[in-house]
Structures are given as C-alpha cells and as structure tokens.
C-alpha cells in the first residue's frame, strides 16, 4: 500500500466513478448550497456514432465495471427493436433474464455487504479504519464469507450466460449466443437452497436494522419525491428485465402508467445545469421544480403493485406496511429494498433453472430493419434507458443514455444538502466523521460512483467548504 494521497477530481473522461461535493457557507457559517458534481460518460454517446449496430451491446457495457450486464442488455434490447425483433425466442429471453438476475443479485450483495455494511455495523461516525469490509470480516466472519460466496454465485451465473464474469458477449441483437448446458444448470441448482437461506438472513438483517433504527432512518436525508420504474406489462408487478414505465407521486398517486418505454421522451425532459456534467431529468408535466423523481430498489418497491415471487412479495408487504402502503421516502430503506430484490432474483433464478427452455437451441430471431430503437431495463441502481438510431448501413447515428445515477441526480443533490445542513452547518472544520455522513447519503443511492472505489468502503469523494466570499475554507478527501 502506498502513501495516503489526495485524489484530484477533475472533469476527465473516466466512466462514472468520480465525484466532488462543494459546500458553500454564508456569513454565519451556515450551509447555503451543497452540490454533488459527477463527471459523466457523455463521451460514449458521441464515440458510439459510426459503430456497427451489433457492436453496441459489447461496447457500451464498458461504461461500467459493476453493472455492465445492465448496459449490455439495455443496448441489446434497443438493437432487437432495430433489427425488427419484437419477441425473442424463449431460450434467448430466458437466458438474458437469467443473466440479469445474476447481475442484480451480485451487485446488490456487493453494495450491501462490502460498501454499506461497515456503516451499518459500526455507525456512520465510526473511525475510518473500522469502516471497511475487512473489519466486517473480523467482526462477523460468517457474514463476510456469505457475502463473498453469494456474489460469486451471481457472477458465475453471468459467466454461464455471457462467457465472462465481467464484460462478456452473451446478448446479440435478436437473441443470445448460447444456451445453458445441463451441467452448469445442475451446479447452480446444487447451491440454490443455500443461496436462498442466506438471502433470507441478509434480508432479515437489513429489515431489522431499518426497524431498529427507525428514528435515524426516517430523519436521515429523507424527503418525499416522485418515483419511477418499469412494471410488468400484464399486471404491474416488479419486472427487472422488461415492462412499461410507471411514475407515482410521493403519495403514491399515478403520474403516468403503462407507458410504452419507447415513448420516454414524451414524459421525461433532461435539464442541463452549468455546474454539473450530469443532466437533471424531470417529468415533463410537473416541470423541473417538482418533476424530479427517484429510481432504484426503493423506488421499485414504491411503484410496483406487487412482486411475482412469493417470498419477496411477502417481504415487500412488510416493507410497505411501515408506511401503511404509501411510498416510503427514507433513502436508507433502500438497503432493505435491495435485499428483497436479492431474494426475488434467487426465486426467479430457481424458476428459470427448472425451465427446459434454457437448453433450447433456437437462439436468435430476425426481422425487418428499423431506424430507431429504445431499450429499457431496471438495473440494480434503477431504471436505465438506451436509445439509438441506426442508418441503413448498420451504423449508429444517434445515442442517448439515461442511467440510474442520472435519474437520481436531483435526489442525491437534495440528500447532500440535507445532510450538510444537518451535520456541517456552523462548522469551520470538517471532521472525517461528518464527511462520512455526506458519503452515507450518497452511498444509499448506490451511485455508480462507487465503481471507482479504489479502497473498499471508500469513494474518491472530495468535500470543499467555501465561505461567503467564495474562499476555500477547508478541503477533505475521503480517498487515501
């Protein structure tokens, strides 16, 4: 390990991963403005132009090292539309779903155990030396072991469906390039009971934490907002792979529902602000001031009617009971929601493994070429939109991506300000513990910032404190 160093955060071309918080104080040292700046990957939208359509799912997954499968599948779904395929052969759709559930599960497990658990186990203000996965392993070795093996299970599923654990090539326009060999299926079935048992335990842990810390959870960067996610076309159930768009208000009232996602532009507008590289989307009808919304695991719990797998559905009912069925606005409840989804993924994976379609040999379909295609998926961190136009030469001419972290931009900024006001207002010095409160708020959204975490449990996040005259009072970098 090298010497501690300050991470310089500047708007460079890195994918996700880099964040900076700036906090402006007024004459009384009170927080005037607090912002999270994220350097985004708009470059992809530009340099994908001119590339060939079947390359796109493989290229754009490089946006991310934690949830590449989401980008891979969202792009493949858009390309299905472009090559004129509205319905995949069952083997293709089910292999893709399997890949996706493996992905969501491993990403949530990574976030909960490796990134969030240190905060939850040791407290937000605990010494930095303690807030890492190694301390979790020391304190709770069995928990740590399960975290690693559950993540491995998800990654093995990805490997079996995409050829590699990270950045594989499974989905191709119109289908998939492989089916699931019986030996692989049986190996997964051999451990699925154990995975379910561990998912139950992780869920109980997240639920108990939330219920036991109700005061903290309700008070911490908790505020009402609109929510958006895909819901299953037929019945409004949770569907992480496919569906229609639905948005609800903080009170649970519908804003739009059963909207074909290819029409996302009819309901969403992407706002630009001079100080951030990331756009601020909002719901058109509600306007920028009140039209912002959140996506992600908790947003999904808040928008769907139910979950189609029994255990996860029962768990969701328990979560929704806390707010008597109304949307839950407490950002820390995301951890609970995430573990419900882990259980849902395991239930779905089990069902899929028993489905003989996974051994089918019809892998791809073709159709009549179209010029434009939208692919939307519920990624671990929330709704993900990919939109492309492709010319008659098969070359991309237009690309627009709205990733989960972008949907949550306003929400994260509000959370940062909330926490800054609560914990930093009136202080001329920032302690590491205070800084971590800001991080906890951001981390609860599980933004893809965490991609760039070079030391477990830490983000290359920098907080700067300015006085009323704009002078820099103090600077703290969480990265060492």
């Amino acid at each position, binding site marked *: 390990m090298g010497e501690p160093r300050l991470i310089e955060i500047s708007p460079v071309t890195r994918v996700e991963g880099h964040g900076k918080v700036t906090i402006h104080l007024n004459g009384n040292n009170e927080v005037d403005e607090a912002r999270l700046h994220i350097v985004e990957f708009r470059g992809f939208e530009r340099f994908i132009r*001119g590339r*060939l359509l*079947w*390359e796109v*799912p*493989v290229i754009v997954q490089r946006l991310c090292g934690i949830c590449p499968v989401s980008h891979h599948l969202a792009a493949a779904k858009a390309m299905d539309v472009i090559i004129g395929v509205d319905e995949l052969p069952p083997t293709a759709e089910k292999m893709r779903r399997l890949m996706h559930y493996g992905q969501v599960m491993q990403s949530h497990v990574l976030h909960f155990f490796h990134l969030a658990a240190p905060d939850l186990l040791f407290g937000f203000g605990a010494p930095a030396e303690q807030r890492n996965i190694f301390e979790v392993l020391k304190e709770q070795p069995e928990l740590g072991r399960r975290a690693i093996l559950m993540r491995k299970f998800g990654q093995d599923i990805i490997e079996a469906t995409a050829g590699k654990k990270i950045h594989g*090539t499974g989905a191709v*326009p119109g289908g998939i*390039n492989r089916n699931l060999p019986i030996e692989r299926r049986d190996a997964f079935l051999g451990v699925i009971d154990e995975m379910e048992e561990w998912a139950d335990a992780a869920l109980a842990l997240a639920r108990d934490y939330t219920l036991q810390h109700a005061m903290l959870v309700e008070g911490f960067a908790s505020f009402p907002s609109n929510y958006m996610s895909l819901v299953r076309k037929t019945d409004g159930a949770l569907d992480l792979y496919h569906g229609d768009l639905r948005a609800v208000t903080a009170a649970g009232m519908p804003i739009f529902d059963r909207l074909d996602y290819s029409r996302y532009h009819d309901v969403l507008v992407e706002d630009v602000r001079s100080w951030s590289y990331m756009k601020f989307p909002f719901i058109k009808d509600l306007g920028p001031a009140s039209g912002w919304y959140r996506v992600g695991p908790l947003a999904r719990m808040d928008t769907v009617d139910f979950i189609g797998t029994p255990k996860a559905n029962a768990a969701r009912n328990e979560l929704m009971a806390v707010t008597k069925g109304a949307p839950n606005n407490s950002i820390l409840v995301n951890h609970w929601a995430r573990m419900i989804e882990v259980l849902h993924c395991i239930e779905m994976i089990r069902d899929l493994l028993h489905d003989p379609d996974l051994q089918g040999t019809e892998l791809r379909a073709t159709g009549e070429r179209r010029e434009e295609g939208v692919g939307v998926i519920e990624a671990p961190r929330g709704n993900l939109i990919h939109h492309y136009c492709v010319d008659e030469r098969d070359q991309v001419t237009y690309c627009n991506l709205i990733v989960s972290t972008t949907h949550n931009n306003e929400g994260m900024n509000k959370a940062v300000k909330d926490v800054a006001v609560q914990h930093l207002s009136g202080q001329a010095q920032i302690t590491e513990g205070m800084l971590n409160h800001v991080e906890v708020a951001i981390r609860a959204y599980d933004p893809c910032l965490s991609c760039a975490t070079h030391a477990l449990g830490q983000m290359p996040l920098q907080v700067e404190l300015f006085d009323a005259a704009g002078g820099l009072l103090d600077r703290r970098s969480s990265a060492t």
Partner: protein
Amino acid sequence: MSGFTFTIDGTEIAAEDGQTIMEAADAAGVYIPRLCDHEGLRHQGGCRVCTVKAGGRSVAACTQPAAPGQTVESETPHITKLRRDLVEMLFHEGNHLCPICEASGNCELQAMAYRLNMTAPTKFPYLEPCRAVDASHPDIALDTNRCISCGRCIRASLDVDGKSVFGYVGRGIHRRVAVNGSDLAHTDAAITDHAVSADVCPVGCIIRKRTGFTTPIGEREFDHGLIGRKIEEKRRG
C-alpha cells in the same frame, strides 16, 4: 523430387526441393509464427513475423527456400523479441481495442501477441489512425483502423476470386489497403468472395455483417489454445 534435411533449433527437418523453410517446418510439425502468409495464397514476405536466422542471416521463412544441411534458428530469445516487437508495432499502428472487437478470440494478431507473450503495447508511440468505417456494402464492412496490411485480401481477390477488390495505395508508412472504388459498395465485392471469407483477413478489418459476437466466448478459435497449435499437434502425433 529429391529430398534433403536441415535443422530448425536443432530438430532435423525433412524437406523437398523447392519448399520454403516454413513449408518444410509445417510438414514436420514445427510452427514458425506468421501473419501475412496464408494457406492457399501466394507468399508475400511482408510482415517479417516469420523471421528466422538461416546460416546467420535474417530471412523470411515464408519465402526463403530450405537448403540442405542448413542450420535455422527460430525460437531463440533474440528472434522471439524481434517478432514481439514487430507485433507490438502493429498494435501501435492501428486502433486495436480487443475488448470491443468482434474478431477477438479469432484474431491472429491478438493470438500472436498471446503466443509471443506480449503484454500491453507500451513501447512505441500510437499512430491512432482515424479512418471512417466503410459500411456501405449490404453484407460487408471494413474497419481499416484494424488493418495490418498483410495483403491477404489483395492476393485472395486477385488470385482466387479473379477480381481486384482490394489493393495497396500510398507509399512507405502511408501505404495502406484500399478498395477499388469510392467505397466497398462501388466495387464488385460479394459476400461469397474468398477475399472476404472469415478465413482470409487475420484481424477484425474485413467484417461479415451481422455475424459479430455470435460465437460464444469459450468456443472461438483461440479459446481452444495458442495459434500454431494445429501445426504443432502434427508433431506430437
């Protein structure tokens, strides 16, 4: 036809009159790395990846005739380094982003880099060409940023297909492969041409449309082993 023997790295190789060092070596199950030479096509002797030392002189094994009693060095540390440098220069000359390239796993350049233990190409400056992809043809596309100027497509088009779809233009460092028309759609190229078959272009420059990434990882040519292994298997029996 009369036969004779010579040695490669101390192994005795039987040869016939008129055979090149590489042809005799292939028949004996001794693999000499190569990129521009290809079965069924005229020898070109362009890439120099097949460089060996015969009687102390550096020669291209794909064009140099074998000679009785000759002592040939091939896999010495010096020659291997030379070959690796040549391959590395090819990476610097084009834009080789293997992780997103549909030739990955089937690409001879990539496979050669693996065989020669090339790690990241860092020695030389990148030329970073910026050539537009020619996707004008309904079934074929060209990404010449990946072309290594091996000339295999040129020889295949001329000698096998009886066409001249591909040819060299420019001189020296500016020499590169171009098509015989304003773009590929304005040539007589057809998907059935040998020149555009999956076999001829060693890299991901000539692209057969709509086939990319359909072979799963694990089933691609070089997922099964190193380049040259098929020749070497002959020797092991």
